[in-house]
């Protein structure tokens, strides 16, 4: 089996001949990793997923899932992936159990296998007590879990989660994160998820691609992305009224020192290690540190740095134009 579970090559989707939703993106996802697509609404995340899960045909370029071309080997791709969509797709008129069996039938799994598997999965997502209740009576969190169970029915090698925690309360979100971690750890599953929650990407993903206006802006581990901003920031003040800029600069790991009023702003790759070194070095010279704080960059800052706007701005950014874009895409299909 190839090490690359997903390999996208110039993947592009243009709706109605002019609306570029996904613009020549390239990336690859390795076996066993949790890969996150991070971006504001309308950035092209769902369109990318829809192409990867063979619901939409790429306009240009293609992607390979476990070596199968998504535009040509549809069936092979569909058999090895599981999909947990953004929406609640379970049929409200059917029970949880019936819904899972329906999913199993769609994959052509024989009844004797699917019955056993359905119960296992309902156990896994803690819905076994409610299996014969109609989905109508389920709460939002329960419905999410049911979607997850449906997505796992064919024992996929690769699971797609489209905005898995959208609109969930804090507890349910935490529970969803735990499921994701468990699938990765215990089943060695590869997961591809989209989100517009930075903390979610940070907490779950091994690697993140930031996507904006249909293009991938940057790819890397959350640490790499944060470090690419220049690392942590240490702010410190000393008792003595002496300029220590040159002294601090010589300390290991320190990248940059700036004096602002009475405090020094120090950029470093690894704040936890550098801070004690600085204190130690200053004490040796007889200086007394009066204040010290350590700030770690968040993905929010990474996002801000790479897209030129914060997540919140992006959401506000002409809400109308984003809406218009979404509507146009909706019309175009899905």
């Amino acid at each position: 089996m190839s090490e690359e579970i997903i390999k996208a090559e110039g993947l592009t989707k243009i709706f109605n001949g002019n609306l570029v939703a996904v613009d020549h993106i390239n990336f690859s996802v390795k076996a066993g990793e949790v890969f996150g697509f991070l971006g504001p609404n309308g950035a092209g995340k769902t369109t990318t997923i829809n192409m990867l899960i063979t619901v939409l045909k790429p306009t240009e370029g293609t992607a390979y899932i476990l070596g199968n071309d998504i535009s040509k080997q549809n069936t092979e791709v569909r058999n090895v992936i599981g999909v947990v969509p953004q929406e609640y797709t379970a049929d409200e008129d059917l029970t949880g159990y019936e819904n899972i069996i329906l999913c199993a039938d769609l994959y052509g799994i024989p009844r004797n296998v699917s019955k056993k598997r359905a119960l296992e999965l309902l156990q896994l997502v803690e819905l076994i007590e409610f299996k014969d209740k109609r989905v109508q009576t389920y709460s939002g969190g329960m419905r999410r879990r049911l979607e997850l169970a449906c997505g796992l029915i064919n024992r996929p090698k690769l699971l797609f989660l489209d905005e898995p925690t959208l609109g969930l309360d804090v507890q349910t979100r935490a529970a969803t994160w735990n499921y994701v971690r468990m699938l990765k750890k215990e089943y060695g599953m590869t997961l591809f998820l989209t989100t517009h929650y930075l903390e979610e990407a940070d907490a779950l993903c091994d690697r993140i691609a930031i996507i904006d206006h249909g293009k991938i802006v940057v790819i890397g581990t959350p640490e790499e992305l944060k470090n690419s901003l220049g690392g942590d920031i240490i702010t410190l003040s000393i008792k003595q009224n002496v300029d220590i800029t040159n002294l601090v600069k010589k300390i290991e790991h320190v990248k940059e020192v700036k004096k602002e009023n009475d405090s020094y702003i120090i950029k470093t790759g690894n704040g936890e290690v550098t801070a004690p070194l600085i204190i130690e070095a200053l004490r040796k010279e007889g200086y007394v540190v009066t204040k010290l704080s350590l700030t770690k960059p968040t993905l929010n800052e990474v996002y801000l740095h790479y897209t030129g706007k914060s997540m919140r701005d992006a959401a506000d950014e002409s809400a109308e134009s984003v809406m218009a874009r979404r509507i146009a895409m909706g019309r175009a299909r899905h």
Partner: protein
Amino acid sequence: MSETNHVSTSKLHGLWALTNRELKKWYKAPVVFFLTLVQPIIWLTLLGNALNLGSLVSAETITFPPELAAQFTPTQLGALSQFFQGLSSQVMGSTFGTTSYISFMAVGMMAFTALFTTMFSGMSVVWDRRLGFLNKVLSTPVSRAVIILSKVFSATLRSMFQALIILIIAIPLGFQFGVNFTPLNIIGVFAMLFLICVGLSSLFIAINIRSTRIETPMAVMNLLNLPLTFASSAFFPIEKMPAWLQAVANANPMSYTIDGMRQLLIFNTDWTKLAFDFVYVGIFAFVLTTAGIVLSWRFLNK
């Protein structure tokens, strides 16, 4: 998840799963199912009696003017009254092909219940799209054609069941079978219904699959509903319509469906007419099914 995947390649597996999903929404919902049964009873008893044209000329409705009555003896008057009543069933017979209007109308109703049911069933595809179910199904190995066919079949099965209920209910209400009716004819009736339902539901699904709002199919249905119903032989024979309406009714596939069913159930069967009905409806069904499935399939493969 080490167990190997047991994947059957049978297309029927997914087709039945999806068809049954649609049907379950109907037969597993007691209220919906009950209303399905009650609706034809209401239609038949209300419309069948309200439009009972056969009762227009009867002993009660015939009163002779006194000056006319004075010229005849009571026996003669009785005979005259008998003559007019006989005339009534003669007129019914020559106009409707049967002396029982409720039989005439019940067959029309069977066809129209089929039309309505296919129309409404087709709307579920709009919800499937809006709720994301369609996309989920598209990401599974089920073929696109199966997704469309499951919609067509569930609508067809439901329509045929409803038509059967109407026929069963019509019997105690006075339904009169034709002279050369045999139970085998029922098979022909359902073959006819099958053709029209498959054709119509393929068309409606092709229309509905493109709309994201439920209002669009609603508008389309309202537009098609009345002309398809009344510009046909469902409630009134085509020969008695004005010429321009006859032209419309003669093109309407519903007319042929209904005529075919009447030939099989209540008329003194005219085999040439029946054969022509089958050919017309068959061609219509074939063209619409092909067009509908191709259009839907192309849409799903964008």
